[in-house]
């Protein structure tokens, strides 16, 4: 166990502050449809630091990154770079994109050259410079290839070479490895770390957005954990492990578990199911999970004795955090699952569900989801109608008052849940919801 602490953090405290966020918020839409993507974020990034923004999808981490790069303006607070508020695109920063964002009609070399050209470099100097940059990332020999001829990993190397072309002081990475296969991603992470730690590149700080916990623990000096609704910073975890870090180390695993617990424990206020449309109070959206997935998770958990490590479980199920958390949330709102100290376990009710017969399960689930205000509202509306049929439009209109653009997807989720529990269903021909009575 080599939990040795590097001497860097101590120095870093005195190193100059490059970036500072003061009460930064970002809202979309207006009036009733106003939706806070990010709220009240305070953050400091110093020279020499590798910072990770970590959180589930929809927590506004990419929005935050875009505000730092100057692609979007904050609607509250201010983004200071070198002490100056940003106006327009941040001239010291650049982004490496998740989708690579290479121009498919330009060759590898032209893709790098166009960034040099935009920066005003004269034509004769561009060719050699681009080739040198491609050489640095190990792409010599591929200069004349088109991006479509390259593997994902190689495309992202072009993305890095292009970013290096403008010699950014701050390098922003927007989930740069998440579109790659596991092996390419691991290789590229290593190469980036090597460039960064050996100071080959003039970059003075890195800000990476990710939802991959291991990736964050592997690379970052500090992890900023974010949560959604609204997007906000919930905690910071300094990572003081010495490089090279190894996944198998106990200290590494301990940190991963710690971060996982921080992320899983902070997803939405799941204990309060919120209110229904028109009842006042804040409406809580249903988690983006299918109930059959929840049923599968309950069975798996029951087979494993009713308790398992959340992180290990997502590994066994080969599920990303983003796919796993909504299912866990669904189980928690329905009172079937609980989370404690990074472990997921069945509640007595969840155990009862797992033990029950198929018919009983449906009934149990129907009873549980009827406790959710949205579902109950739909169910009661249908019951009050003489034909037990009501146009989809009616529900969408009511939901739109609370959820704006999310109304339709919310109704889709509700219908999918109602169908699974055989409460109500949807007639696609007539665009109506109807009660499921007597089959």
């Amino acid at each position, binding site marked *: 166990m080599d939990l040795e602490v590097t001497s860097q953090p101590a120095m870093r405290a005195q190193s100059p502050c490059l970036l500072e966020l003061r009460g930064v918020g970002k809202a979309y839409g207006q009036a009733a449809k106003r939706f806070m993507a990010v709220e009240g974020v305070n953050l400091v990034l110093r020279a020499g630091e590798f910072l990770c923004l970590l959180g589930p999808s929809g927590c506004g981490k990419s929005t935050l990154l*875009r505000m730092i*790069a*100057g*692609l*979007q*303006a904050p609607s509250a607070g201010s983004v200071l770079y070198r002490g100056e508020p940003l*106006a*327009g*695109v941040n*001239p010291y*920063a*650049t*982004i490496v*994109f*998740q*989708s690579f*964002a290479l*121009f*498919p*009609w*330009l060759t590898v070399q032209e893709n790098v050259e*166009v*960034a040099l*050209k*935009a*920066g*005003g470099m004269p*034509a004769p100097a561009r060719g050699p410079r681009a080739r040198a940059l491609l050489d640095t990332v190990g792409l010599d020999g591929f200069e004349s290839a*088109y*991006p*479509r*001829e390259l593997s994902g990993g190689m*495309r992202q190397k072009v993305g890095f070479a*292009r970013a290096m072309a*403008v010699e950014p002081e701050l390098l922003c990475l927007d989930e740069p490895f998440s579109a790659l296969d596991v092996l390419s991603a691991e290789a590229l992470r290593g190469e980036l770390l090597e460039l960064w730690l050996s100071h080959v590149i003039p970059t003075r700080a890195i800000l990476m957005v990710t939802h991959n916990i291991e990736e964050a623990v592997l690379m970052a000096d500090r992890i900023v954990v974010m949560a959604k609704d609204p997007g906000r910073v919930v905690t910071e975890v300094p990572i003081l492990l010495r490089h090279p870090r190894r996944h198998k180390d106990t200290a590494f695993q301990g940190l991963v578990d710690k971060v996982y617990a921080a992320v899983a424990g902070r997803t939405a206020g799941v204990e309060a199911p919120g209110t229904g449309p028109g009842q006042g109070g804040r409406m809580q959206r249903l988690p983006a999970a299918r109930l059959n997935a929840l049923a599968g998770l309950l069975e798996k958990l029951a087979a494993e004795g009713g308790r398992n490590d959340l992180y290990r479980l997502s590994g066994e199920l080969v599920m990303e955090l983003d796919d796993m958390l909504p299912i866990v949330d669904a189980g928690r709102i329905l009172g079937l699952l609980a989370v404690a100290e990074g472990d997921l376990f069945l509640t007595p009710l969840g155990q009862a569900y797992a033990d029950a017969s198929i018919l009983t399960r449906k009934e149990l689930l129907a009873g549980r989801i009827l406790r959710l205000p949205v579902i109950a509202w739909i169910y009661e509306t249908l019951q009050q109608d003489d034909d037990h049929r009501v146009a989809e439009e009616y529900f969408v209109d009511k939901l739109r008052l609370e959820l704006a653009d999310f109304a339709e997807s919310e109704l889709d989720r509700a219908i999918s849940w109602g169908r699974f529990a055989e409460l109500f269903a949807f007639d696609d021909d007539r665009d109506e919801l109807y009660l499921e009575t007597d089959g």
Partner: protein
Amino acid sequence: MPYNATRTMLGHFHSNVSRMRPFRFAPALPRISAWSAADGMILLGLAGFLFAALRLALHAPAVIRGPEISLAPSALPWYTLLSCGRMVLAYILSLMFSLAYGHAAARHRLAGLVLLPLLDVLQSIPILSFLPVALLGLSALLPQALAAELAAILLIVTSQAWNMTFCFYQALITIPGELGEAATVFRFNPWLRFKSLELPFAALGLVWNSMMSWAGGWFFLMAAETFRVGARDFRLPGLGSYLQVAAGRGDLKAVLAGLAALILVIVLLDQIVWRPLLAWADKFKLEMTAGEEAPASWAHDLLSRSVILERCEARLWTPLMERLDAIMGRRMGLSIARPRPRRPVTTVVVLGALGLLAGWGAYRAVSVLALLPRAAWATIGLALLATAGRVAVSLLLALFWTIPLGVAIGSSPRLAARLQPIVQVIAAIPATALFPVLLLALVRIRGGIDLAAILLMLMGTQWYLLFNVIAGAASIPQDLRNTAALLRLSWRDRWTTLVLPALFPYLVTGAITASGGAWNASIVAEHAEFAGRSYATRGVGALIALATERADYPLLLAATLALVALVVGINRTLWRSLYHRARTRYQME
């Protein structure tokens, strides 16, 4: 005439002719919007515009002499060249217009508020109905020959520009977010952004739509070259008038020579201009995966091996672009801030001024219309009804033969391989070029002009339907065909549960385009000056011609506006609801 989506589909058809590849495309019409306040504004604006043109037309000379058309074979190349020249000029104008309009609509929110609904209406109205007004208006201002040339070119532009504009606009608003952000983060100036991102991203669609616009342009060119009412002869020397005169004199040899020249030009341009362009544009595909066969072109292969061209590129083109980039870079500066909304003051002022002008014109137009006796409105109503009937008949006739044949072709790759080249050449002949020939055959029969009118509409419409039916039939998944066979569905059940539902979206797409073409054709189909006599039938096209001849401007204005309103109305109601149904119920994903 046509809608862009079908043009794109036609484009796919073209691409498939040389090599056999399964049809692989879904009908994708631009969404037809519901009636809105903007429509009313636009119709009023059009009324104002027409009124202004008509004010000019009051001063149009009463007698206009047309050109002498020589049928000598030696004159044919000259006429061909003239026709092509008009096409090229019109196309260049269309392209420039499309880029400017599309850019303005996509990038400036306020301008987009006006430009988009306008585009929507303009691409759906029968443009040919504006020809008489444009001809009369321009000939009051300009020397006759120039006026007719300009009117012809403007007409072609208005037929070509909309779908290209829409395509460019669509491309601009669908540029993947991160690609656009990359351009911003790397501080591309507007010129570099246009050159390296926007234009390449739109290139493939623009080439497809250019091909289709070009093909549609022939239809309007032929119509414009042969337009003549009474004492006003607006004809232009060109292939269209050559064919018309040849047919009028019953000179079969000249007719054949003219048609041969026309087909030769169309096929030649396809082979040495459009195909190579298409093959070249393939590199602008966005898909990051290699695979799917690229469109082939012998001319492109030949050119890309040329050493001279390569030298030209290295010595001339590259340095030239470098200079241009440098100049533009200096002019636009390096500091490209995040795209922020422009100060809307200028836009508001310009739009306001335009709005006032249109409002004034509309007011005057309406006051002119108020003078029209009630009987005239009844005549217009009946004429519209008659034309609508003809459009419906031609559409039904087209459906009647294209469905069985299209399904047969679409279901059998072997048949498709054999028939496609033939169908393509026949479809390429503009229906308006054949109209004099039709008249030659039918004019002696009673009701011949009626028949000829329907046939002309049919010729203008059937190909869109055929291509769409072929595409639809080819899109039926083999799994479903097999299932139908395994279930031993009867012939009848197979058609009602599989083939027709699968075809539905394609039929709607094809029919929308086809009816647009038919309405356009009605303008030139319902009256004819043939061999020194004039023939007419009841219909709005005939009415417009009559009004032009008699210089009855209130009637001309009323008829044109009523036609536009009816067609827009049918689009917004009938086609919109069918299209909605096709999208929600019958789309195969």
